[in-house]
């Protein structure tokens, strides 16, 4: 018994020990092995995978830099906005998703301004948990979105009850469970279409798509920040301790060389010019001669970069909307988009036409093949290599000296000069003035001259080509190229590199970079340049550019009218000028694309140029030096009569040649119109008010356009208004064509109305 018991106990012990060790080594050993394998051997892999799933690497958009004009007025700014997305996978899990979606379509879609179809489409990706609904949502709208997200809803899911029967489970939730928001930024263009083609715009992703926004995208974008946070499987953030934040570095701001005031003058006049000429488009660039800084750059029609996808031109839009074929309409729409976004002043090319004659003459003068006294008799045509090329004036200009040749824009004379220069020397200057290369302006998509396609190569240029080139035909250049070249003449022969960004500022408005003007090369001598300026001033004083004249402004310029190479019919009328001729500061090119009716640069491009130039010269405080005739007409400034006795003041003013009207029964002058210091014609009208509080008498502005100077003067005087005439008094056949205050407007008695006049005599160069 005892022995057996012992044995049984021994067996129990033995077998227990077998089981114990099997348990420890097989069971726990396997566990420890698995643990070590997963945790120690593959730990890093798994950790990395886990992190990839766990971490939400949210990019925090850096605030895009602002864009300022040269006076630090903001023209493009970024503001906080929001992005709204939907979580389709969580929506799909609900059995009443259709019901929930219907509510979203009804309430959320209108808030976001998206179509029901888009919402439904985005919600249909049921295996995703993030589908964007709309970005760049303004904060006011975001408040409404958030209110919607707080709205309660019932989520139903299919499940089983305790008995295992299929049943519907209901849980209370909010729409925020399906609809998420994220910070975003939005780009504002407070001045709307101001300099739009230059500025460009940003896409929905806050990336520059055109213009400066594109060219300086990197600079403006800054470095996005990151929030690396752990998220749970439901895509929500975990408590803050898992978060590490890398602050975004805001983008840098740009200060442009563009001056808002000048740009506005340019845009206003260009718009009017386009309407007057019934043109397809109008382009204008204004440059600081000494630096190459662009002061204004405009394309008409333009668009609003804040709403870059609508066609700004009403007429064009209606025309496109009228297209019935959807394919065609889409095509037309896209085409219109591309056209309106394009910055024609640098992206388009045209034949410079007669404007280019300044280059030909500069080259010839510099090379000494002609002199100021060179004469030429224009018979109306000339023969080059057996081919007859006629002048725009078929009867011929007769005997002219060089200056007259330019004033008349005589083609045969230019051909003669070109032939004298020869291909090699011509091409040298053609290249030197920058017609074979881009100007290097800091804007995207600058037109690149394509030898053999839109410019001649030196090898392919023979006497016939040389002949046409010497008066600016048979090759193309972009407006910025032409203006840069002509500016070189104005700048003592130094060709500048044009630029639009003057400074780059960091987020604290500290200057990071400042653009130094770049002289690309000395193209012609200062002496030649001076001679050219003198001749070009004569073009404006008495030649084809006489409508570009600004009293006292000493504008030098050259008109151009060229047939378009690309279009069967159609012209580009242009006027390139700078002022003052003796020490040029401002250069300008105005080009009118496909005008209807009057087509000559001297007729339609020069008058707006004169308006703009006059405004700029006044704005820039460039001293206007009037000649005697002008002095008499508009050189005076209004004397002060306020505070003096009415009677004696009137007497004194009348003695100076002014007309005086005293209004009121008081003894002393309390108020006068025009105010003292304002410019006034020497026989202008001054109104003296002697009674306090009495409202100034008003008059209706009469129609002052389409009149001769004398008639306009009379009309103004009859209405009790002062008139300020601007234009070239030297020429004949003057017709007023624009007045600064619209007819019919009520203005105080004595107000000065500026009236522009033009001459249509001898301004034709085609």
């Amino acid at each position: 018994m005892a022995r057996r018991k012992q044995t049984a106990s021994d067996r129990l012990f033995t077998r227990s020990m077998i089981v114990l060790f099997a348990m420890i080594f097989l069971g726990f050993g396997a566990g420890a092995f698995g643990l070590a394998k997963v945790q120690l051997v593959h730990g890093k892999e798994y950790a990395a995978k886990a992190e990839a799933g766990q971490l939400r690497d949210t990019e925090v958009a850096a605030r895009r830099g602002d864009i300022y004009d040269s006076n630090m007025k903001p023209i493009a700014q970024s503001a906080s906005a929001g992005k709204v997305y939907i979580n389709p996978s969580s929506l799909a899990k609900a059995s009443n998703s259709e019901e929930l979606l219907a509510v979203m379509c009804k309430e959320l879609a209108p808030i976001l301004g998206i179509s029901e179809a888009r919402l439904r489409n985005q919600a249909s990706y049921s295996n995703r948990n993030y589908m964007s609904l709309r970005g760049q949502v303004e904060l006011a709208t975001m408040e409404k979105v958030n209110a919607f997200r707080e709205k309660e809803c019932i989520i139903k899911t299919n499940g089983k009850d305790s008995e295992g029967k299929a049943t519907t489970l209901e849980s209370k939730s909010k729409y925020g469970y399906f609809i998420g928001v994220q910070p975003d930024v939005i780009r504002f263009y407070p001045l709307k279409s101001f300099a739009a083609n230059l500025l460009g715009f940003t896409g929905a992703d806050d990336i520059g798509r055109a213009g400066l926004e594109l060219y300086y995208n990197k600079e403006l974008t800054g470095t996005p920040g990151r929030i690396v946070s752990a998220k749970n499987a439901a895509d929500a953030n975990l408590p803050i301790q898992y978060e590490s934040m890398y602050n975004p570095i805001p983008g840098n701001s740009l200060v442009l060389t563009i001056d808002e005031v000048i740009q506005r003058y340019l845009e206003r006049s260009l718009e009017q010019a386009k309407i007057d000429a019934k043109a397809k488009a109008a382009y204008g660039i204004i440059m600081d001669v000494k630096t190459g800084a662009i002061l204004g750059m405009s394309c008409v029609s333009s668009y609003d970069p804040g709403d870059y996808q609508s066609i700004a031109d009403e007429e064009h839009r209606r025309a496109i909307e009228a297209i019935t074929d959807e394919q065609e309409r889409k095509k037309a729409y896209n085409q219109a988009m591309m056209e309106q976004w394009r910055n024609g002043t640098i992206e388009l090319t045209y034949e410079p036409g007669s404007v280019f004659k300044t280059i030909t003459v500069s080259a010839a003068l510099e090379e000494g093949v002609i002199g100021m006294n060179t004469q030429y008799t224009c018979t109306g045509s000339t023969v080059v290599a057996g081919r007859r090329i006629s002048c725009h004036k078929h009867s011929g200009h007769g005997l002219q000296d060089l200056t007259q040749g330019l004033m008349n824009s005589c083609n045969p004379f230019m051909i003669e000069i070109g032939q004298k220069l020869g291909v090699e020397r011509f091409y040298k200057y053609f290249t030197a003035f920058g017609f074979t290369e881009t100007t290097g302006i800091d804007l995207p998509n600058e037109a690149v001259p394509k030898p053999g396609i839109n410019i001649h190569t030196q090898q392919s240029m023979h006497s016939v080509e040389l002949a046409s080139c010497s008066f600016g035909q048979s090759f193309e250049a972009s407006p910025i190229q032409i203006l840069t070249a002509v500016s070189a003449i104005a700048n003592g022969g130094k060709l500048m590199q044009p630029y639009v960004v003057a400074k780059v500022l960091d987020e604290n408005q500290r200057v990071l970079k400042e653009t130094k003007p770049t002289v690309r090369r000395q193209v012609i001598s200062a002496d030649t340049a001076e001679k050219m300026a003198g001749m070009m001033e004569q073009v404006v004083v008495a030649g084809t550019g006489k409508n570009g004249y600004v009293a006292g402004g000493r504008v030098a310029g050259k008109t151009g009218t060229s047939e378009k190479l690309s279009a069967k019919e159609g012209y580009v009328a242009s006027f390139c000028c700078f002022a003052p001729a003796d020490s040029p500061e401002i250069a300008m090119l105005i080009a009118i694309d496909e005008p209807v009716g009057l087509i000559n640069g001297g007729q339609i491009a020069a008058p707006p140029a004169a308006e703009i130039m006059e405004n700029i010269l006044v704005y820039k405080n460039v001293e206007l030096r009037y000649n005697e005739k002008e002095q008499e007409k508009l050189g005076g400034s209004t004397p002060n009569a306020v505070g003096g006795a009415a009677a004696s003041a009137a007497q004194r003013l009348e003695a100076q040649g002014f007309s005086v009207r005293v209004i009121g029964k008081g003894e002393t002058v309390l108020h006068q119109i025009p105010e003292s210091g304002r410019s006034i014609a020497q026989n202008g009208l001054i109104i003296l008010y002697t009674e306090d509080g009495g409202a100034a008498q008003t008059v209706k502005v009469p129609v002052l356009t389409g009149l001769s100077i004398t008639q306009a003067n009379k009309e103004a005087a009859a209405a009790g208004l002062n008139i300020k005439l601007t234009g070239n008094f030297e020429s004949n056949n003057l017709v007023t064509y624009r007045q600064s205050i619209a007819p019919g407007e009520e203005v105080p008695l004595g107000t000065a109305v500026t009236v522009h006049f033009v001459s249509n005599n001898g301004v034709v160069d085609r």
Partner: protein
Amino acid sequence: MAGISKTAAREGWRAQRRAKEPLRRQLLAYGGFDFPFMLIVIVLLGIGLVMMFSAGYVNALRKYGDAYYFIKRQLGYALGGVALMFVISKINLNMLRRFAIPGLGLAFLLLVVVLFYHTNLSDATAQEDFKRWIPLPGGMTVQPSEVGKLALILFYAYAMEKYQRPHYTKASEQALLRSTEAGRLKAFWHRWRYTGLYMAVLLLMVALVFLENHVSGTVITLGIGALMIFVGEQRIPLWFYGLVAVIAVAAVAVFYTHPEILPAYAAKRIIAFKDPMLDPTGDNWQITQSLLAIGSGGWFGLGWGESIQKHLYLPEPQNDFVFAIVCEEIGFIGAFAILLLFVALVWRGFMIALHTKERFGSLLVIGIVLQVGMQTALNIGVVTGVLPNTGIPLPFFSAGGTALLMLLAEMGIVLAVSRVAREIKR
């Protein structure tokens, strides 16, 4: 009279006391219990609660709006369970012996009832039809397979003690039995009848558990039963164990290569186990996320409460996969230490068993400790991807009130046995 009666009364009281003593002795166990074992249990329970809270609060907050939802419940059960453990540790083994047969009866009753009256606690959206829980009033549930395991252990311990010795032990008797055909039959019957009974009980129980759609319960019940028969029933020749082992290996091989013969829910998990990359977001989501959690822990872990995988990546991290979060938060070092604590528990349990004179107590402890050990090993095997995903909770760690209560009651039984395990008492 008075003197006599006084003496008689005193004598009577003494007699009464003497007479009472055996009953008390019969009901209660005396002597100290095994303190180290109790300490290991309390330490494991403490760590388990802390880790379960950490692992589960995110889910609790999300599901019930209260981060303490699981831990409050678990803590309540733990306190009750510890009290129960100490109460049971005072029970005399004779009392337990009396429970053996009725306990088995009750277990079978419940195992049959659950097939017809059950509640599905698992995710309501799952398609699986689990018949594992009997709902009780007050939101409680009973898991008959758990009751079954304990009842089986109790029954085996009882029976294997009672029918320990063969009836014919003398050589002359055996020779007589072998001499005739009837005698050989009788000998065979005597040799196999209890073994047959044990196996019949085991197979019946396993069949019922299997019908619940409960493969993990089936496997553990089978394992405990087989091992207890191996340890406690000593009449079976070794070749028979060899045969059982071969069948077991063959069955595993067949199930592994042809999972489709298993019920769909189990087959799915084996298929998923075979190719973890097959569907990392579907059937393998849990195990994939578990591996990512464990892997993230590295040597030292992310720190207590710092797990990220518990943030809804790992489904139900407070349940079967709590160990993954343990690994993530306290790293290999911590997880290994916990593993060692479990080993210590098993070791100490065996020491108690082997130092207990009463065979019933020994087998009882071995069975209970085996159950805890197997569950732990299987759970860790699953969590670390060594085994297919079966729903086995980790003792002391996984959330589940009745299971914890049951576990602590079993620990109480071990402690009760330890009171009579004289040798290791110091």
